[in-house]
Every structure is written in structure tokens, then in C-alpha cells.
């Protein structure tokens, strides 16, 4: 039991946090989904004696439209008549009510959702006044989805959102975990993310054909971007091994150089766009190909693509670290580099590989970022290195090297994401959140120390 807690401490912490936020955010939920729409339609159909005449009213958002569409379809299928559908403002609703009240003999129900039911024209006293003018509205009932009490933290929407927003950090954290297992560190990941974004954007615009870029061209652009970052990672690795420069120093330098390069490329590109006469500004390099947004903003089977990419990478990394020679070598180099070398492990190659992977992961994260914002942002990823390191450390990887688990890092990233989300929901300001995070990292490391004893 004790052992189980020690081994799965971070999972337990994550679950406890989720439970805590679930309790704290317990509140009235007003569903506004197609399923809720069906439920509303079903209630109207069963409660009315004949075939009901229904007006459907809601706001003009994608979700509200999905809701009204579902209500309309269900009423039609149940033999009722939908007299009008309003997706708009309260005054639209008022006008529609008057028109329908004027044109039809009997209106049985108004199907709506929580937000629209709060509108003035739908309030009982106002409806009474309207009904006085239009007798057909006299028996009208306002029907809205049943509300229930549920933690707003624990909704699918919120959870998906939390993970999606942190997928980029979690992806970089894979590479960082490998580096930290070898007792190294990589501070350059945030800058490499930006460098990759900008490089990919320029490549997509200039080489792949801009607006008309095809899939192959865009993939090529991504390959160039991640390739550049991988090479930067190789450079870090070579410096750390052959030249014996401390990883902290090498990657600190790379952090500055890569950020600078990202800005230079962006500025020069903007300048070139303007004919070269004026100096450019460090704005995002816009990617015009619409297909490029698929990775960052699209979803497959209802799950956002960044999350799918993240999960795939984690599974791959987990298998690599537990089931392949290179994974064993990485742990060995971190645990005791001299013993590893004397056992025939190619220590230098392993270290260079690890930094290269870290660069590549930062590059992939850069592509997700560029796709999400539809452009390469030279200022993207600032301070990400610290967030990533925090995720790795909270996930139980020892900065002394030799120990750590890939899925531990995922849990660490999720813990940080959940805390951030919870603090946001609780209305804690971002600068106060920093204090909480600082304390959290310290607590995680202390916990690790005690576990060792």
C-alpha cells in the first residue's frame, strides 16, 4: 500500500486535485446540446394532447444552432409542427412571436434553452402581455432543458479544453524528460518552438505555395521547421559531449540565439513583404493555406488533434524508453555515465540523440502552435522551458538523472494544467498563480526527496 502510494503519488495528487475542483465548482448546469434539444422536444410532444405547434428560440451561436436544429428535427419526427426558428437576439424573438401569434391559430410551446429563456420577451409577465394581443399565444408554455447540479470543472468541454491548451507543453516535456533523465537540462525549447513556427511559416509561404499550398508542400514545410530544431538539438548535444560545456550554459546560449533567429527571420520576412524598403516588425508570419489549421484547430472523432498527437507521442516515447535499447541506454547514462561507458554504451551518441529529440519535440510543438494561430509567431513559447521543466519535475523525474517515467511527465503536465484551470475558474489572478506554481514545484521536489529516504 505504502509502496503503491509512493509509486503513483503524482496520479493520486492529480485525482485529488480533480476531486477538489469538482467539489469547488459544483453548480447549476444548463445544458445546451443536441441531446438536451431532443429531451425538450420529447417533453413538448408528450405533454401536449395533439400535434403541438412549436416556436424554437435561442441565441445565434454554433452550439445554439445545433440545439435548435435538434429540437426542430425531433418535433418534426414526432409529428409536431415547428412554426418558426429564431437564432438571434431578444428583439428577433419578440418580432417572431408577434408574427407567429398573428399568422397561426394556436401556439403550444416555445422551445428554448437557459440563456434565451432569460430574455425579456420570454419572461412570463411579458408573454402575458403579448398573449393579450395575440390570443393564439394564450396557452403557450416555455420549455427549456432540465438543469441539474454538476461540477463545471468536470464537463467534457472543460476537460478537453484543459488538455488541449496544454498539449504543446506536454509534447515538449517528452523531450525534456529524456534530457533530464540523462542528468541534463534544455533551456532552449521555448525559443526553438518559435524558431520552428517561423521557419515553417516562411517555408509554407515561400516554398510550398502560400495560399495554394498542398498537403505535401505543407508537410515539407513542417519537416524543414522541425529539421532546423533537431539540428539545433544536435548542436546542443555536441557541445555538451565533445566540448564538455555544461548543458545549462549551452542551452541558455541556444535559447537566446534561437529566439533571436526567429525574430530576425520574421522581421526580414515582413520587410521583404513590404518591398524591402522599410524595416519589418516582429509580427507573426501568416500562413495562408487553410489546410494548415487542421492540426491545431481540427478534431478527429470529436477529440482535438493536438491531444491525439500528444497521446500518440507519449505512447511512442513510453515504448521507446521501456522496451528499446536506446531507452535503456538513456537511463544507464543518467544513472552512471562511467559504468554505462564501461558497459559499451555509446554515451556521446546517446546524449546527442537525447538533445536532438528534445529539439525535435520543441519543433513539433512549434508546428502545433503555428497551426493553432495560423502563423509562425516569433514571440511564441516564451518561458515555456520553465513550465516544461516544472511538468517534468512534478512528474517525478529526478534532476540528478537516471530516474523518471514518461507517463509521469504526462501526469505532471496535467497536474499543472488542472491547477491552472482550477485557479482560473476560482478567479485567481495570473500573478498570484505564479506563487502557487513556485510552491508546487518546490513541494514536488521535496516529496521526491522524502520518498527517497
Amino acid at each position, binding site marked *: 500500500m505504502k509502496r503503491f502510494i509512493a509509486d503513483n503519488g503524482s496520479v493520486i495528487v492529480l485525482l485529488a486535485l480533480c476531486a477538489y475542483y469538482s467539489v469547488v465548482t459544483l453548480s447549476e448546469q444548463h445544458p445546451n446540446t443536441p441531446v438536451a434539444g431532443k429531451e425538450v422536444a420529447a417533453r413538448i410532444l408528450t405533454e401536449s394532447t395533439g400535434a403541438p405547434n412549436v416556436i424554437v428560440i435561442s441565441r445565434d451561436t454554433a452550439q445554439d444552432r445545433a440545439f435548435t436544429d435538434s429540437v426542430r428535427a425531433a418535433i418534426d419526427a414526432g409529428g409536431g409542427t415547428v412554426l418558426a426558428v429564431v437564432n438571434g437576439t431578444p428583439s428577433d424573438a419578440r418580432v417572431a412571436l408577434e408574427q407567429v401569434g398573428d399568422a397561426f391559430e394556436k401556439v403550444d410551446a416555445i422551445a428554448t434553452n437557459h440563456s434565451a429563456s432569460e430574455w425579456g420577451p420570454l419572461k412570463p409577465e411579458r408573454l402575458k402581455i403579448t398573449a393579450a394581443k395575440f390570443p393564439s399565444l394564450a396557452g403557450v408554455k416555455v420549455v427549456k432543458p432540465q438543469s441539474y447540479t454538476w461540477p463545471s470543472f468536470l464537463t467534457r468541454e472543460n476537460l478537453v479544453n484543459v488538455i488541449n491548451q496544454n498539449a504543446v507543453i506536454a509534447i515538449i516535456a517528452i523531450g525534456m524528460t529524456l534530457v533530464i533523465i540523462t542528468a541534463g537540462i534544455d533551456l532552449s525549447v521555448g525559443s526553438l518552438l518559435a524558431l520552428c513556427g517561423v521557419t515553417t511559416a516562411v517555408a509554407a509561404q515561400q516554398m510550398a505555395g502560400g495560399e495554394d499550398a498542398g498537403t505535401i508542400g505543407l508537410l515539407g514545410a513542417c519537416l524543414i521547421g522541425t529539421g532546423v530544431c533537431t539540428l539545433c538539438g544536435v548542436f546542443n548535444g555536441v557541445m555538451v559531449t565533445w566540448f564538455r560545456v555544461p548543458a545549462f550554459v549551452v542551452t541558455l546560449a541556444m535559447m537566446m540565439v534561437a529566439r533571436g533567429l526567429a525574430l530576425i527571420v520574421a522581421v526580414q520576412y515582413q520587410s521583404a513583404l513590404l518591398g524591402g524598403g522599410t524595416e519589418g516588425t516582429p509580427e507573426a508570419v501568416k500562413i495562408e493555406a487553410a489546410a494548415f489549421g487542421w492540426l491545431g484547430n481540427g478534431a478527429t472523432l470529436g477529440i482535438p488533434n493536438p491531444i491525439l498527437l500528444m497521446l500518440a507521442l507519449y505512447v511512442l516515447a513510453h515504448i521507446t524508453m521501456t*522496451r*528499446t535499447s536506446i531507452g535503456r*541506454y538513456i*537511463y544507464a547514462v543518467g544513472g552512471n555515465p562511467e559504468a*554505462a561507458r*564501461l*558497459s*559499451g554504451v*555509446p554515451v556521446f551518441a546517446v546524449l546527442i540523440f537525447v538533445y536532438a529529440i528534445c529539439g525535435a519535440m520543441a519543433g513539433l510543438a512549434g508546428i502545433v502552435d503555428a497551426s493553432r494561430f495560423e502563423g509562425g509567431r516569433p514571440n511564441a513559447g516564451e518561458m515555456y522551458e520553465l513550465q516544461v521543466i516544472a511538468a517534468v519535475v512534478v512528474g517525478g523525474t529526478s534532476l540528478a538523472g537516471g530516474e523518471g517515467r514518461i507517463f509521469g511527465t504526462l501526469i505532471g503536465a496535467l497536474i499543472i494544467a488542472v491547477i491552472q484551470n482550477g485557479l482560473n475558474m476560482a478567479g485567481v489572478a495570473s500573478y498570484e498563480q505564479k506563487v502557487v506554481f513556485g510552491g508546487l514545484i518546490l513541494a514536488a521536489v521535496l516529496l521526491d526527496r522524502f520518498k527517497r529516504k
Partner: protein
Amino acid sequence: MCGVDKSFPGVHALKGVDLDLASGDVLALLGENGAGKSTLIKVLGGAHQPDSGTIQIDGQPVQIASPQDSQRAGIGIIYQEFNLVPAMTVRENIFLGQEPGRVSFISAGKERRRARELFERIGVELDPDALVRDLTVAQQQIVEIAKALSLNSRIIVMDEPSAALSPREVQGLFRIVAELKSQGIGIVYVSHRLDEIFAICNRVTILRDGEYVDSKPISELTRETLIELMVGRKLENEFPTRVSATVEDQLDVEARPGLVVSGLAGGPKVRDVSFSVRRGEIVALTGLVGAGRTETARLIFGADKRQAGRITLDGNELDIRSPRDAIAAGICLLTEDRKGQGLILNQSVLENFGLPNLSRFSSGGLIQQKSEREAFNGYVEQLQIKVSSPAQRAGNLSGGNQQKVVLAKWLERDAEVIIFDEPTRGIDVGAKFEIYLLMHKLVAQGKAILMISSELPEVLGMADRIVVLHEGRVTGEIGDVKSATQESIMSLAVK
């Protein structure tokens, strides 16, 4: 010092040792490697506390619980590894820790003057403002001596002070020692070089296996009697009798001449080493600490950079540039420092075992953990390794079992030449015997074993041939081990 006793977990390092030093004496502290000299020095320096025994200075009992106590008692210790700050000047180093008070400023002029006085006292000239990192080893040693004098030390202990000095510098050291002696300072001089001891010491105290053997004026001793006192211990029957190889294996052995090393040099410690190890043979490489034994092994294994020399295995020349190359050629090394270099302590024994053998257990890029575990379990049985499970952490095993895990990993790799560096260091008696049996088994299978050992009984009990090193060169080879004695080895080793 009287009846000083000190135990470490598993080792009884000092068993009631006496040491008596008069002022103006130069006392040689002698003993084989592991006899307890270093431990005794550390007790004097306050690095270790004795379990029992007393220390008296000028008839007054003193308690030495810390290095500060030792300094206050007037003991200055010059370790082999100097305690100097390379980036600071000579005078800053001398007066480090003696800065006047918390508030007052350090007067550079005063320090400089005092440093000059100290140098004058020992009859040397040295710039007090030179940076320590620019000094030669001999000059750094002088700084250490001056530092000890600045603390008004009445007793100065020098641990192998001549080990890193050139012959001319050693003469300079002798002059300083004579100067200190004439000033009434008592000196404990630890050295393996018997010539030096006869040159400057007037008394000798000998330790053996942590026990006090004898103290004698140097005039009563000869080189031979001294060596006898150092090693004089009866050979017990702690070694198994050799199983001879079968005739078939012998033929095989004839066809494959094993490992031949010629003209090996590299690093500061290995200058010119040549020897051979035939298959089916155990060759012991011995010599004093610092003779370059471990370094020779590391050069053969590719762990350090080889500057010269040829290595052939069964007649084929090997180009070994890294441990990887050596392992691929069938040479493996069981390091002396198992915890630091042989094993990854925080990983499981299985992972340690698998590390050089992963390609063997992999298919389609994935490690087949089942076949890895089966192979390991085979060795658990064969080598009688006591592990609770393959997942046990390597750090939690006893020394003997750790050694067996390392051996298993190399056997799985089909090692042909096995280099054991101090195969039984830190291993208890029972496990020692098992390791010896295993070594016999391995040579019976036609493997070639190079055994590095500073324990002479082990060398005499196990080896077929003995190669003795001194300061990076082979000073002798003993083919007829049966008639060899510890004395005959020692006389080759001390030169």
C-alpha cells in the same frame, strides 16, 4: 597513540594500533596496501573518530573529533591530494581559515611577510603572490608544509609525499624534512619507497592488516627484514585447487594464443607495459598503489586513450578505441570500483545485466524481456547469485553478488579475455572463495584471465604467472609461481 581501534561496516581497519613519535623523530609508517595506514592518518587528522584507544601529545590526552581539533592539537597533515584552492595565491592558501577576525581587514603585507618567514624556516624560496595553480606539484607541497607550520604544528604527517615528485624534487623534500627535524618537529613519513625510508627516517612502525606489527629503529633493519615484517603472514588455505583443463581444451588453447600486449603506454602512469595472457591461464598484474595496474587494464579495455602499444588477441591485432571496441573483440573488465564504475546502482540487476547484451535480446527493435530474464536466471543458477528477484536494485546487493552480476553480464557477451581488477576487494571470505572457484572454471573453459591484485597472498594463490609493475613499467615477471614468495614480489615492486 595507544591501542587505536577503528571499524567500518564490514572491515576492521585498525586493530589496536600503537604509534609513538618523539619530537625531532622522522618515523616511517609502513605497510602493504590496505594495512591501515590511511585510516590511521585520517584518525590523526580528525576525519575519522577511533572506536577506542587514546591519543596523547606531550603526555596530555587529546580528543580529535574534527579537523579543527587536529589543527589545534598541533598536528599538520599533508594528504596525497592537496587541500589547496588553485585559483588563490600562495599566501591566501597558507592563511586560509586563519583570517584575523570577522571585522578587521586582512593585511596583505603582513601575510606576505609571514609567508616569507615560513619559507625561510624551511629554507626555500617561493613567491607568496604566485597563484597555486601555476605551481609545480613540489611547490604546492611546500605550500602545504608552510600552511601546517603557520598553524604552529608540532607534528607533521606526510602521506606518500614523494609519489608525484621527480628525483631532484625528492632531494628538495629531504632537505625540508631534515630542516624540520632539526627544529624539533616530529614527522610521520608514509612511503612505499624503501630507499627513501632508509635515507631519512630514524624509526619505523609497521602495520599489517590493521594490526600493529612492530616499531624498530631503522639501524636495526635491513631491506629484507623490513619486507618480511610488512608481508610476513602465513599463507592459509584460502584458495581452491586448480581443475586442469581437458586435453581437447588444451589443444584449442595451443591454437589460440590469447592476449598479447606490447609497449602499452598512455596517461601519466603507464609508460611501457608488455605481457601476455594465454588462454586457460590466470596472469596476475601486481605492484604497489600508483604503479599503473588499473590504468593498464583501462588502456587495454579502451576506457582511456592509448598513446602507444599493440594489443593482439589470438594473433589478430585489435584497434581498441573505446570500451565498445574492446567488448566487441571479446575483452571485458570487472572494475575495482564496482559501485562507481561497474554497476548502475539505482537500476535493477536485470537492467545492469542486459546493458551490453541488448541487441541479443531484441527483435524488431523491442527488447524481449522474457528472454532477457531467462538468460539472467540461467546465470543466477550457474553463478549462485543471491538475488530476491531480477528487479532487485543492484545497489542493495552484497559485494560478492554485485561482482557476480557484473561477471554474468560479461559472460553473456561471450567475453574471451576477462580482466579482474581487485576481484575480491570488499568481498567477504566466503564469497571470495566462490569468486576464485569461478575464475578457475573460466580458465578451464579456455578463457584468459588477467587479475590485478594488491593482495600478495591472492596473487600467489591464484596466478599461473605474475607480472610486476613499478611506476608504469614491467619490472619483472615470475613464471614459477610455486617457488615465488611475497618477498620476491615485493622486491620487484618497490625497486
